[in-house]
């Protein structure tokens, strides 16, 4: 992992050794950031952070595309394993980028094709019927595109005989159901891992590599079509990310970054804070953790096929901290730093800045515990085990993370107030462009 765990500082000193060593904005000895932070340069740097983050998402998606091409050409256990590892690596930058979603309508409108969840996977491929609960009223939930030349959803018949990236994009949310996820990371995850039939017990999906075998070795039918699907859906992921990278690229007239940095800087600051707060509270603490925990519902587990949910949560949390500190550790290990929201809040209210920084550290520490427990070599406990009825230890781990996120969101609200950002309403976010 490229982001070493940093313990919460107990003092008011807001910088940790890790950041100091890399030279961050708060460090007086820093050579690279001598400029005082202003709203304008903070928003400019935010755009740079987003660009670096999406570039990393693209780099790792290309590696995933190559690994899946290998798997399709030569379906061996080693190649399936390599494709899974490439998928896991691709999630690291992408989950950090989710903090850019809320507030930036251009991301929110686009991301449904990349990260929609939870999905009715029976739309895509075979499922075990008695272990499959789909969204109520979803006519596409058992369409099985891979096994069909045409699918009929809500009275509409679609020719799916040739599986192209464009076709899959058109099929996403077919029939008006958000659970009809034909594209993106979770569709790929399902194609690599398959259904997790273990419920609250240990174990993820166990799709056999022979699901991609040719001729008589093919298991579960339609192996060639399955390979075509995997090929098309990974190609689409790459082109979608290329588009988003271009939106955040510097020096391009009329792209999103150009508009964002040309607008009143306070609007950009509002988007940053809104993105942090929305991901922290409503989405990560609420939707992705509390619902799954309190309802004991593995249907509400985020990366349910691969059991990589702990990392999805961890890197979501990391993304929130990235935006506040203006720091991003790239997948090649290099560090992006610059003027940050933290600098601005420190100018206005150093005590609040110190508190929020230590709360961000505390939430990362809580998420790190979840990650460490899930990845323990001795006795791993995946997120879907943690949410099982009567698992007191798992419940405590998740509750600690939720509470830390709730606390930091309170300070994010105060930071918004401190910076004179009155409305955090989503209705104000995204309408400016």
């Amino acid at each position, binding site marked *: 992992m490229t982001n070493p765990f940093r313990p919460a500082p107990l003092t008011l000193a807001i910088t940790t050794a890790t950041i100091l060593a890399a030279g961050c904005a708060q460090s007086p000895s820093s050579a690279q950031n001598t400029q005082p932070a202003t709203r304008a340069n903070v928003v400019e740097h935010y755009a740079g952070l987003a660009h670096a983050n999406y570039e990393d998402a693209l780099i790792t998606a290309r590696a995933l595309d190559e690994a899946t091409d290998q798997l399709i050409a030569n379906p061996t256990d080693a190649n399936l394993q390599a494709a899974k590892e490439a998928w896991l690596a691709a999630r690291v930058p992408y989950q950090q980028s989710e903090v850019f*979603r*809320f507030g930036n309508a251009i991301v*929110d409108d686009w*991301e*449904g094709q990349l*990260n*929609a*969840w*939870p999905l009715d996977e029976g739309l895509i491929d075979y499922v075990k019927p008695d272990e499959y*609960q*789909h*969204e*109520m*009223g979803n006519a596409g939930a058992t369409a099985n595109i891979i096994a069909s030349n045409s699918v009929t959803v809500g009275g509409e018949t679609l020719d799916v005989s040739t599986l192209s990236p464009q076709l899959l994009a058109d099929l996403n*949310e077919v*029939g*008006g*159901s*958000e*659970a009809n996820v034909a594209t993106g990371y979770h569709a790929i995850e399902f194609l690599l891992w398959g259904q997790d039939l273990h419920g609250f017990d240990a174990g993820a999906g166990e799709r056999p590599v022979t699901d991609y075998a040719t001729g008589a070795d093919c298991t579960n039918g339609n192996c060639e079509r399955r390979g075509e699907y995997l090929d098309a859906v990974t190609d689409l992921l790459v082109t979608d990310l290329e588009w988003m990278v271009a939106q955040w690229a510097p020096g391009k007239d009329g792209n999103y970054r150009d508009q964002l940095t040309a607008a009143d800087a306070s609007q950009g600051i509002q988007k940053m804070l*809104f993105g942090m*707060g*929305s*991901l*922290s*509270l*409503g*989405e*990560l*603490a*609420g*939707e992705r953790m*509390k*619902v799954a925990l*309190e*309802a*004991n*519902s593995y*249907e*509400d587990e985020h990366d349910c096929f691969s059991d990589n949910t702990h990392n999805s949560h961890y890197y979501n949390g990391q993304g929130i901290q990235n935006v506040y500190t203006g720091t991003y550790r790239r997948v090649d290990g290099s560090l992006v730093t610059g003027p940050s929201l933290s600098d601005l809040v420190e100018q206005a209210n150093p005590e609040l800045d110190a508190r929020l920084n230590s709360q961000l550290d505390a939430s990362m520490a809580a998420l790190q515990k979840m990650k460490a427990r899930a990845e323990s070599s001795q006795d791993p406990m995946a997120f879907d085990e943690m949410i099982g*009825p*009567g698992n007191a230890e798992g419940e405590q781990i998740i509750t600690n993370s*939720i509470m830390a996120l*709730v*606390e930091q*969101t*309170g300070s*994010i*609200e*105060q930071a918004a*107030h401190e910076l004179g950002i*009155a*409305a*955090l*309403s*989503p209705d104000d976010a995204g309408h400016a462009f």
Partner: protein
Amino acid sequence: MKRLSQAVFLSMTALVLNVQAAAPDNASAQAGERAREIWHQQIEGGYQTLSEKAGEFAEHSRHWCADPATGSRSDVEQAWQQAFMAWQAVRFVDFGPIETDNRAWQLQFWPDPKNLIARKARYLLSADQAPTTDTIAGAGVAVQGFPMAEYLLFDEPFNRGDQALPAERSCQMLTAVASHIAANSEQQLSDWRAFEKHYIASEQYQDASVRAGMNALEILEERRLAQPMGLRGTGKRSAYVADAWRSGKSLATVEATVRGLKTHYLPGLELLLENSGQPGLADRIRGQFNEVLENFPALDTPMAPLLADDREFSRLQGLWVDVSQLTTLVNDQAAVAVGVVRGFNSSDGD
């Protein structure tokens, strides 16, 4: 990532300092305290009704299940409905003791797009041991509240099957769930009473109280109406996204919530508005509550047929417009007038 958020909340009120920086002057501090006294009393009345009705529901369930031949199923259904509507009236309160052990989620887990309720019911009804109150207490929020009781009483496929009520195992589950609801409702009433002093003395609860109504109206407009009506997201109309579709009571819950806000929330808000020199706005809000309520009882009808027919749909649109106007008056105008800023809530995200 467009899944509908659980319309439930993670409150920060206990953790956040009041960010309305200026200390209130004496007159407005007194008005705030008076408003909290009114809110406390009004909400207590709502919890009192909930506790009574939930007790009656548990009693009717026990009675019917003990002797289905002499008891009446429709009495149980009626009692469920009255208790559920009593909950709708105080559902907006998202601070204080209702936060303990996720009591609000326990009473109503919603929305449930993946039909977790049915899955959990199947699981518990096929388990080796008959469900007891202890089973229910440890089985998670999808099992513990009104929607599970609704499933047992009203779900059509379930009630066509051989486990249909009053089958013994299903009856055991119904009575256990009903008694869990009753115990929670009674505890909530008693905790709310114990909360009185702290609530009235703590200025931070003024914002929390105003925001509770704001959040409830936002959820009502966006999640409970616009979403099933297909006015949001993918544009697909779906009755399953609404509350209480199994019993056909989605719109009745809207009425109960609005009536509850008018009874238990509005009086405290009015006092604050009058104190801020905005009595005219208070009048307009009261008038708009009445506008919304004029849609009833005509609209006390299942939602699905209204979604299926464009002419009927326009009646629903009329209600939605009235609710939207009410939301605008409270969440934009009144909130500004009394100095409350919308914070993050659980409906952020998608």
